[in-house]
């Protein structure tokens, strides 16, 4: 009635323009907010991308945690808002056998099957992260006897073991170097909490950040089960066209050298 076609087109395109502008800013902000790769998630968490999509930020895992390990990311913390995480140097995960934080998750962002063997809860399967040793700043690597992280590890001699080697500097002492086995390390962070240096020389990082990936081209030839992986390997062949004549002549071609 009141609106002409001109007005309608104008107001519609104005609304669409505003929506596009708003959407761009909004989307960029959310993208930026969720780009933090260094979040340590509760046990059984899906991969970071899936976790962010699946988590509804209700905080039930945080409330279930008896040690106040888990926290919800607060406004202004530069972490994905409202999602649960922990900082092991403050409070590590004490790896409760009954894992109270996981079954309460209403969305499956914390997946109970990821921390179960034969339908029984098994916290040792958790993969919250992996401990990394900064060998330059670990006093055990200096030759000073310290096994704080090794003693603190709930999977002692599996997730962290000591490697003995001779201290050539003194000639009569041994190094007791802590080595992390990422096959067993759950990323609970008890080692990081226990580390005696001013800033922890052993610390937990998300597995996606800390671990490399071999790919399918290198296999352990001595391990028959590893042999299968090579079948997944994809070969890429590149061909470079070289003329036979010019390839031979290239060594005789002194024109370039004589130019100067």
């Amino acid at each position, binding site marked *: 009635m009141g609106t002409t076609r001109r007005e309608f087109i104008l107001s519609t395109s104005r609304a669409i323009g505003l929506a596009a502008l708003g959407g761009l800013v909004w989307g960029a902000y959310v993208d930026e907010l969720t780009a933090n790769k260094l979040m340590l998630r509760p046990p059984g968490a899906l991969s970071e991308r899936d976790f962010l999509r699946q988590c509804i930020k209700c905080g039930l895992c945080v409330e279930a945690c008896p040690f106040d390990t888990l926290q919800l990311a*607060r406004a202004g913390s530069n972490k994905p808002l409202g999602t649960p995480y922990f900082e092991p140097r403050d409070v590590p995960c004490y790896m409760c056998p009954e894992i109270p934080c996981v079954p309460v998750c209403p969305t499956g962002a914390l997946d109970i099957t990821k921390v179960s063997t034969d339908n029984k809860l098994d916290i040792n399967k958790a993969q919250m992260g992996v401990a990394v040793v900064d060998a330059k700043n670990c006093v055990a690597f200096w030759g000073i006897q310290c096994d704080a992280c090794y003693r603190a590890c709930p999977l002692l001699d599996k997730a962290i073991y000591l490697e003995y080697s001779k201290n050539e500097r003194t000639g009569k002492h041994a190094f007791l170097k802590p080595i992390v086995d990422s096959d067993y390390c759950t990323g609970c962070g008890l080692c990081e909490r226990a580390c005696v240096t001013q800033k922890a020389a052993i610390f937990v990082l998300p597995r996606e950040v800390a671990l490399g990936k071999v790919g399918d081209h290198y296999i352990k030839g001595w391990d028959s089960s590893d042999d299968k992986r090579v079948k997944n390997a994809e070969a890429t062949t590149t061909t470079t066209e070289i003329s036979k004549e010019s390839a031979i002549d290239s060594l005789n071609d002194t024109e370039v050298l004589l130019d100067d």
Partner: protein
Amino acid sequence: MINAIYKHRFLILRRIVQVGLMLLYIGGNVWGWKFLQGNLSTSLLLESVPLSDPYAVLQMFAAGAIVSSNLVIGALIITLFYLVLGGRVFCAWVCPVNMITDAAAYLRRKLQLDSVSKKQPASRKIRYWVLGLSLVLSYVLAIGAFEFVSPIAITHRAIIFGMGLGWAMMLIIFLFDLLVLKNGWCGHICPLGGLYALVGKVGLVRVAHDESKCTVCMKCKVVCPEMQVLHMVGKTSEQVLSGECTNCGRCIEVCDDDALNFSIRKLAKERGNETNN
């Protein structure tokens, strides 16, 4: 004194419900109460009944998340609850942001800012655009887009799980409503309010206007956060049927002539007859 309480009876009741719910949640987190755990995104009532924010679940659908049966049940319970009640009961009676924006609106009236800027420079339809946009963004980013910026979620998490910079968000909303746009957040932008306005179209609890008692003093329109829903005041006797009405009851309280009251929605036929009269 008693008159003052009577004149604010719904307001006092709303604050008791809002603060009480937040207290129950805080108790769930801090003191380990098992009555109501979680927060307004998803909670667990008595360790057995799941309750979920239907908007958060909708965003998860749009983002392509696997939505568990618990969430679906929880969202259905909440949706049905507000669908039957009618109006944006969540906004006026549950949402903690309501206390912030009500405070801003109160201050606007006291400072007479409304008489300075009479015409509001924004449409109340923005919330439906934001609602649509949030679902498109959730689909594109494969992540619940509004949940990561929601001032509502930031506010209730700040109250329940620790403040952080949450107070800054509360202050921004307060100042926005006070200085930039009257009823700006709750009445124009908030997509959760937009969703509940759609859900609340058909519910039973309705404010009814009795034109024969009305003296056209317009106190109700001054105090109403969604005054477009009171279009019938002083004109016809009918129920407020817009889903945008928050059922806060402020109009009923301020009316000195008993021209406004809560009522149960009449059946479609009767309503038809009434408009014929």
